[in-house]
């Protein structure tokens, strides 16, 4: 009897070990095309379900929406600063919420019209950079056009993060919190928090004395991050790291791989295959929502001078279950025909929604177009350690 129990126990332990080993080394790798499919179109204007646009300025560029976010249900939040509001719109184009952001505009005394400057509407003084929507509040990273002042705060020559809850807005000076970097970026953390990170010139990195980042919660409380813990800012949200070798004396990455570590233990939770089989790439940005990572990158032949096309690669990585997807997007001359030039300060035209889809916005002649990337998988490879099984779909 005892022997039987021992055998069962051994088998159970072996099965358990195999299960854990399998789950940590099994990866599904998919490849194919990702076509941006129209998701939602908001016409230009000031009506209930329209968004504001002004221009062209200097005969070519427009001023209008620059940042948006998408929630778990696929509802879109768009900063419509010319109409001084943030709209929550569903896929059908119905407005579900209209949040007034008039408090962000400070132009009573200084109308923003200075000699030689462009004659723009007052609302154009606000320059949104990035919007992150959580269960409780909205975080808006923004700055102001030069010349815009506020009597209470003095010059608004910085980058600010505003925490917006219904009509209540709390504004923090992000550059002051980070002790004066060149640029400020905002990313999502778990528990309704965001992290502000910075950009400083390479020559300043060795003498930089300021913080690495600042965490802001939904009440506007801040926490300085002096050191990262296993690439994590808060010790809870895993951080993404791009492992690479510098390609020759350029800014390109060779043998680039995505790595995610467990914030607590430092154990590697996810390690991707080398992107483009190790060939040099250039990163256009990495988005991460604690479950899924999306990386946009280009290769050395992405720009085709002859046929005027740009090929961008979209790599999608799921942590649980482990999957890797590699898609390509090609934009050519004919795609640009109905596209207006973007605003000069375009910041977040690609967004990884909380619903797991990847979105982007384009200024079309008729209105603002939201597209969702619908992947079309052509091959799938199942990989367990060194064992590979590839399946093809349709024509490659």
């Amino acid at each position, binding site marked *: 009897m005892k022997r039987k129990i021992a055998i069962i126990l051994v088998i159970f332990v072996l099965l358990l070990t195999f299960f854990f080993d399998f789950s940590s080394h099994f990866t599904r790798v998919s490849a194919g095309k990702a076509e941006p499919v129209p998701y939602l179109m908001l016409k230009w204007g000031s009506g209930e379900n329209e968004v504001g646009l002004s221009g062209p300025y200097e005969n*070519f560029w427009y001023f209008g929406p620059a940042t948006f976010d998408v929630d778990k249900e696929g509802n879109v939040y768009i900063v419509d600063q010319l109409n001084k509001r943030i709209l929550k719109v569903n896929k059908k184009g119905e407005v579900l919420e209209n949040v007034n952001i008039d408090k962000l505009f400070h132009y009573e005394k200084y109308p923003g019209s*200075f000699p030689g400057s462009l004659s723009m509407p007052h609302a154009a003084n606000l320059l949104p950079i990035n919007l992150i929507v959580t269960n409780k509040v909205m975080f808006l990273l923004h700055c102001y056009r*030069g010349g815009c002042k506020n009597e209470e705060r003095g010059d608004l020559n910085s980058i600010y993060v505003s925490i917006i809850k219904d009509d209540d807005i709390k504004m923090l000076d992000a550059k002051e919190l980070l*002790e004066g970097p060149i640029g400020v970026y905002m990313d999502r953390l778990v528990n309704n928090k965001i992290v502000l990170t910075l950009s400083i*010139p390479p020559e300043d990195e060795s003498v930089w004395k300021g913080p690495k980042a600042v965490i802001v919660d939904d009440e506007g409380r801040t926490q300085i991050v002096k050191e990262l813990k296993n690439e994590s800012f808060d010790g809870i949200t895993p951080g993404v790291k791009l492992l690479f070798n510098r390609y020759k004396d350029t800014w390109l990455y060779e043998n680039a791989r995505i790595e995610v570590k467990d914030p607590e233990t430092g154990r590697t939770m996810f390690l991707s295959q080398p992107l483009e089989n190790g060939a040099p790439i250039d990163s256009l940005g990495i988005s991460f929502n604690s479950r899924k990572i999306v990386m946009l990158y280009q290769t050395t032949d992405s720009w085709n001078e002859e046929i005027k096309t740009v090929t961008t690669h979209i790599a999608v990585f799921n942590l649980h279950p482990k999957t890797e997807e590699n898609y390509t997007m090609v934009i050519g001359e004919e795609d*640009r025909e109905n596209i207006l030039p973007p605003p000069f300060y375009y910041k977040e035209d690609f967004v990884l929604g909380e619903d797991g889809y990847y979105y982007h916005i384009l200024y079309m002649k008729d209105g603002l177009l939201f597209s969702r990337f619908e992947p079309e998988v052509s091959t799938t490879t199942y990989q367990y350690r060194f064992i590979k099984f590839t399946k093809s779909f349709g024509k490659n």
Partner: protein
Amino acid sequence: MKNKIQYMLGLFEAIIILLALSFVVTSSVYAITVTNPSPNPFNPGSGQTSTISFSVDSTQYVKVQIVNQFTSFNDASKTYSYTNVWNSPDAVTYYREVVKATVKRIYAVGGQTYSAAWDGTSDKGGTCNLCQRGMYYFKVIPENSPAYTVYKSVNITQWNSSWLAYIRQARTWLETYPYVASGANTVSRDDGKGTNCTGFVATVFREMEYNLYYGNFPADGINVLTTSTSWGGGPYMQKDGKETSSDPKYYTVTKQSNIFAWWELTKGYFTHVTIATYKNSNGWYIIHSSSARNKVYEEVIPSGYKTIFDKPTVYHWIDIGRGN
């Protein structure tokens, strides 16, 4: 009646005496003592600060500022004449250039000694904006008697190569507004006066003590800066080439402190000039007087440039060189 007149005269005399006394009191010379800055020169790049001590003999507010060597001590503007790209006489006016408006402002009690330390930063641009090498002045202003303002010179050592100093100096202009359209011949850090794109690029060069006797030029005139002209000592710039990719990610010619000349496709000539500052994973950063931002701003090359401008032509100031 006589008594009344005598009383009035007496009152008048008393008022005169009081006025005379108050004149003596208010016009008394305020002694202000300011020590030499220490250390001098200093190196803000390694975290050094330079400190002065001061005392006044009469209690009042005292303000300490930093001004650069181009500042007229009487705060007047300066006008430089030059020959423009069309070989016509032209002029540009510079206004006062306060680098840091308030290092310290304190209610100084007469006879007490106070100190003020400057870390080499300017008002604009934040921590990444350490002033470049050169001479600056502590300007110590006794606010009740500004005529007795004291200037004490302090030197910042060149703590890096001159191409980097050029970028540093450009950053001391960050947030200067507004963007002024070409043709307005004023260049100023003062709020509300501002600069155009070429005035900014050229003035930063002039601030590094190079003899470029014009403050702005048409962007299209950048070619002229590469040849010897009547502009007083050219050529100033050397052409490094033209980028072959429309995507700044794949620029191969550009190095730090290069000047980008942007050819506007619909107009058929150069309409914008910017300074390349650095590149990281976000792309190449530029600093420029931006019409869209309405101020001097440092940012990644805006994505809209791809559709509006041709690939940039790349230049560098010969005396300054270029970076990595």
